[in-house]
């Protein structure tokens, strides 16, 4: 069959232009509600134009006409087959239900992240004991090379006064820095697990070495009072970011599954995003506590109060992650 191009264009052009106008309107207002009548008309125009495109493609003829119809069909396809998610997100419900459920559901990735972090801490503490004479080689910052007891003296005398003048700035800095680290840890999940493994383990080593340094120098109370109020939220948050990262890693590895990698990744999105959202909230809380509470030492705030605060927080966090969102699970 040879196409009567003249007639084809004459008859088709009004509906192509109408389809173009409808699509332009929808593209300008992607979230606007579209009535059933308009949708039916759009669908009819799209189907007719698709048929027109097939006729033109079959003839291998006029390239510009083909491109024109192809552009209309591709835009129409996007408009018709794309479903805009109009479900209103419930932030409250998401934090109270989706986040703890996702953490529990992905227990394997959580166990791996915890093993790496706490394993690293044990290694760091052990290394410090073994290499106590060369302890400064284990610390990431030169400022940690001085004896903990000297730092404690400085902190308790000067730090509280200094910190009081810039708690807001300090809190903001901590929130943004920790959130950046959490996002980075999560993103490194795409390196087949190498990135989060290195990050979690090395941070564990630093933490273990520094903590053991305080313990060996007889500063355990100070350490607990300084670390617990914010650390019981901040450290689990980093571990949870590692959990989300390992979800990506787990999806990248085929492990005998036939589904394509894209499909496997998209299957873990909801849980990974729920966990990362929870991590962000936890880090905001930890940043506020660290700046406004952790930095104040005795005699301003007794260590026992700070430790008790940390223990209550940790109990609350564990209970929340264990129990929240159980109904309807």
């Amino acid at each position, binding site marked *: 069959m040879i196409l009567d191009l003249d*007639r084809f264009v004459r008859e088709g052009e009004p509906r192509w232009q109408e389809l173009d106008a409808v699509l332009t309107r929808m593209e300008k207002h992607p979230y606007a509600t579209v009535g059933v009548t308009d949708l039916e008309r759009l669908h009819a125009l799209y189907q007719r134009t698709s048929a027109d495109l097939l006729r033109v493609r079959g003839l291998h003829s006029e390239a510009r006409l083909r491109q024109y119809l192809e552009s209309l069909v591709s835009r129409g396809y996007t408009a018709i087959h794309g479903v805009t998610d109009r479900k209103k997100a419930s932030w409250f419900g998401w934090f109270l239900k989706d986040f703890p459920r996702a953490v529990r559901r992905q227990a394997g990735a959580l166990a791996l992240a915890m093993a790496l972090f706490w394993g690293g801490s044990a290694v760091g503490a052990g290394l410090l004991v073994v290499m106590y004479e060369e302890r400064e080689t284990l610390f990431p910052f030169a400022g940690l090379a001085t004896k903990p007891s000297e730092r404690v003296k400085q902190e308790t005398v000067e730090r509280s006064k200094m910190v009081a003048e810039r708690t807001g700035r300090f809190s*903001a800095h901590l929130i943004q820095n920790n959130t950046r680290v959490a996002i980075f840890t999560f993103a490194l999940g795409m390196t087949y697990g190498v990135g989060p493994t290195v990050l979690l383990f090395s941070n564990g080593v630093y933490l273990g070495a520094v903590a053991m340094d305080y313990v060996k120098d007889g500063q355990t109370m100070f350490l607990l009072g300084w670390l617990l109020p914010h650390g019981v939220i901040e450290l689990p948050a980093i571990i949870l970011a590692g959990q989300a990262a390992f979800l990506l890693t787990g999806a990248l590895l085929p492990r005998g599954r036939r589904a394509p990698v894209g499909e496997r990744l998209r299957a873990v999105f909801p849980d990974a995003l729920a966990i990362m959202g929870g991590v962000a909230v936890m880090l905001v809380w930890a940043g506020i506590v660290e700046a406004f509470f952790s930095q104040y030492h005795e005699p301003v705030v007794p260590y026992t109060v700070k430790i008790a605060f940390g223990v209550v927080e940790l109990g609350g966090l564990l209970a929340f992650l264990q129990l929240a969102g159980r109904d309807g699970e």
Partner: protein
Amino acid sequence: MASDGLEIRTPEGVPFTIPLAGAAARMMALIIDLLAIMAIVTTGLSVFRAFERLAPDVIGGAVTLVYFAVSTGYGIVMEILWNGQTLGKRLLGLRVMDQGARPARPAQLVIRNLLRPVDSLPALYLMGAASCWLTQHRQRLGDLAAGTVVVRTRVSVRGDWSQLGREKYNSLREHPALAARLRQRTAPELAGLALDAVLRREELTPEARVAVFGLLAGKLRGLVEFPAEAVEALSDEQYVRRAVEVLYSTSR
């Protein structure tokens, strides 16, 4: 290796291609977005600075958080609000889409932006660039994970379909039976070739033009023999143009 387009087949069986964004356009869009972020942050800072004396500590903290929120959240918020576009992408006619040619869902847009740090490793987005170069649909790692692609937005430009080079008088039409026979005997491929030659004749060099039309006229003349008075004094190109008009239009 990367292809130029995203090939889609609709459920109705209609194939079409969406052009993918090139590396240069994406880089330009990124630079524009970085400038936009700087502009937003600078404006925000000057507003905050005006109130700094009232509460320097609070304002200092707010500045840090605003900078972080804008630099991290800009891509997510803009792409959700503008249906897969940031300012840079909009200016350069690019859009983030689901790789099935549907609009990207908010969760996909969040994921592709959260994974940006890994694409920027070790520096200057080298990991992302390598991934774009190696993957079929030019996807950086964030796009691969989110199942998104960056495409060139399509604008439907209506063409001038009247360039068939129709002449006022067509001697072949004086013989309707022979014209019908020509339509019947001409294979669609030959008709398409003749039409393309007529439409693109201005792009050919004079030598190529003579050669192409000579070849096509020879093929077409061999299918149907018109009376001598209808075709005498017609050049090969004129013959092909008149034949194409007969083939592609039944209106007189």
